[in-house]
């Protein structure tokens, strides 16, 4: 049943999460791990030539549900404003795939999944995974879907890290890449924020070295981790605009209740997050982000040299978690490697969250860029534009 929120003209409508399981994955650590299940969704139709497939890769707390709604639910996918008929990823034209990552907790194999050897959740027996492992698992899925070459791989934040991993390691099977608000490697500041999040989880008495699956869960710690995250996703001015110093009604003075709107918002976000996310997944995934270095220790330009894929890098002016200078580092490497590249720093107030919110500007950039890749032209005009 399609709810009111859905505009049938540009929505992918009701969708279903599917899953794909494969025997084993060779991890970067050398370990063989399996079986691996990936949850994924697809929108649009794969064309006969199988040349219109776009892979969307999600950020830290994302999942396979990128667009539309699930049966009986009102919750739109996390990038619904970008995916659908006539949108940035036009599902009339492109076949869009989004998979939940390895290590996640939304249908893919992760620390909360049952270890077939023990019939209990893996917890900390889950192997340490990397962004490259996450991408290698996705590659299995792409092969399974019968796609030899992706039109594009697109993602923001940690999704952008995955895009860079695709570019560094699988450039031969992608025509283009769109890394958004991301970095070749985390700065000490980014690692520091993640570490505080992890410490909050591990300081929760319910965490019990990860063995909490028979309950209770380390909800307080995970909520605090998420609250810290949300602060870093916004900007000073977007917070001022959204909350000001507005106080909530009914707060009791001197009881350390949520007096200010912003406090209430963070608590609400934190409390909501724990309903849908696993604390151990948070630990594993943030570690994978911190450890990631797309350059593998070499200059990134050398890694990229000879690559045929075209690249569009997008950053946002007020993003201080993944500042524009980090995107410029990617652009610089592309320049030195002689890759055809487009870079735009979108003028936005939203901070890091901008990649989810600046629909108009991003849509314009993505739409035109994808069209160019899909029709393989240099400039418009050849196709009656």
């Amino acid at each position, binding site marked *: 049943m399609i709810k009111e929120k859905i505009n049938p003209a540009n929505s992918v409508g009701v969708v279903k999460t599917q899953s794909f399981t494969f025997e084993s994955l060779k991890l970067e650590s050398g370990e063989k791990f399996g079986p691996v299940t990936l949850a994924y969704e697809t929108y649009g139709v794969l064309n006969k030539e199988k040349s219109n497939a776009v892979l969307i890769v999600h950020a830290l707390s994302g999942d396979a549900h990128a667009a539309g709604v699930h049966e009986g639910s009102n919750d739109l996918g996390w990038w619904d404003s970008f995916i659908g008929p006539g949108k940035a990823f036009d599902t009339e034209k492109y076949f869009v795939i989004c998979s939940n990552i390895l290590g996640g907790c939304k249908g893919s194999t992760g620390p909360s999944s049952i270890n077939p050897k023990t019939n209990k959740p893996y917890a900390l027996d889950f192997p340490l995974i990397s962004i490259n492992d996450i991408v290698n698992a996705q590659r299995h899925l792409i092969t399974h879907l019968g796609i030899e070459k992706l039109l594009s791989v697109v993602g923001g934040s940690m999704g952008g890290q995955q895009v860079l991993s695709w570019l560094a390691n699988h450039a031969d099977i992608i025509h283009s890449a769109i890394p958004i608000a991301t970095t070749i490697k985390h700065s000490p500041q980014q690692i520091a924020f993640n570490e505080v999040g992890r410490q909050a989880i591990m300081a929760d008495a319910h965490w019990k070295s990860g063995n909490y699956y028979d309950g209770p869960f380390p909800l307080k710690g995970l909520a605090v981790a998420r609250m810290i995250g949300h602060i870093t996703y916004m900007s000073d001015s977007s917070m001022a605009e959204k909350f000001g110093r507005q106080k909530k009604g009914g707060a009791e003075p001197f009881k350390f209740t949520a007096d200010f709107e912003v406090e209430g918002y963070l608590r609400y976000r934190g409390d909501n997050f724990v309903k849908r996310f696993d604390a151990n997944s948070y630990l594993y995934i943030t570690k994978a982000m911190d450890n990631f270095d797309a350059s593998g220790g070499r200059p990134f330009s050398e890694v990229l040299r000879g690559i045929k894929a*075209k690249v569009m890098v997008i950053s946002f002016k007020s993003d201080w978690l993944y500042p524009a200078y980090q995107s*410029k580092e990617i*652009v*610089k490497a592309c*320049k*030195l490697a*002689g890759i*055809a*590249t*487009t*870079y*735009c*720093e*979108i*003028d936005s107030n939203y901070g890091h969250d901008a990649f989810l919110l600046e629909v108009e*500007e991003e849509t*314009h*950039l993505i739409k*035109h*860029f994808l*069209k*160019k890749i899909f029709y393989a*032209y*240099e*400039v*418009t*005009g050849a196709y009656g534009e």
Partner: protein
Amino acid sequence: MPTESKGIQLDHQVILDLVDQQSSVLDLGCGTGDLLYLLIKEKKVSGQGIEIDDQAIYKCVAKGLNVFHGDIDSGLAEFSDKSFDYVVLNQSMQQILHVDKVLTDALRVGKKVIVGFPNFAYYKSRLQMFFQGRSPVTASLPYQWYETPNLHFLSISDFKDYCRVKKINIERSVCIGERRKIPFLPNLFGQTGIFLISK
């Protein structure tokens, strides 16, 4: 020699004629990308633009161009030597803070450099200065003093002097007025100077 195509700006036409087929071009300050677009369509060049204005970037992307969002002053250093056959600075040189540094870098990054700039010694400018005692406002220098993006005011002769002092070869120079090339007394009658230079 050039065929006058309809609708193409004269300075763009001149630059189009200076550029070889299927060469590579870096356009510094490419604006909305009209010149780069023309070069790709007509000369099959592989083109890359750099532009500071985000609205202009959106227009470039809509044309299918590859373009970097950034300023020219810092955008060149990251390219390796001789990365492009041509580096173009059309109507952007006079707006750059450190012209000498950028031109030196442009001559490093490009095998050849094409610059196009408004001639400050155009006779109408001279007349305005002489008879009215006012800073000139002309078709190629259309701004009032308080709103001009131009940081440098140079003449065609100034640029020739610069090239001589810096030992830069002037391979071609074309001066244009409003509608045609100016073969005679270019520093007096030319509104815009376009130079093909190399080191």
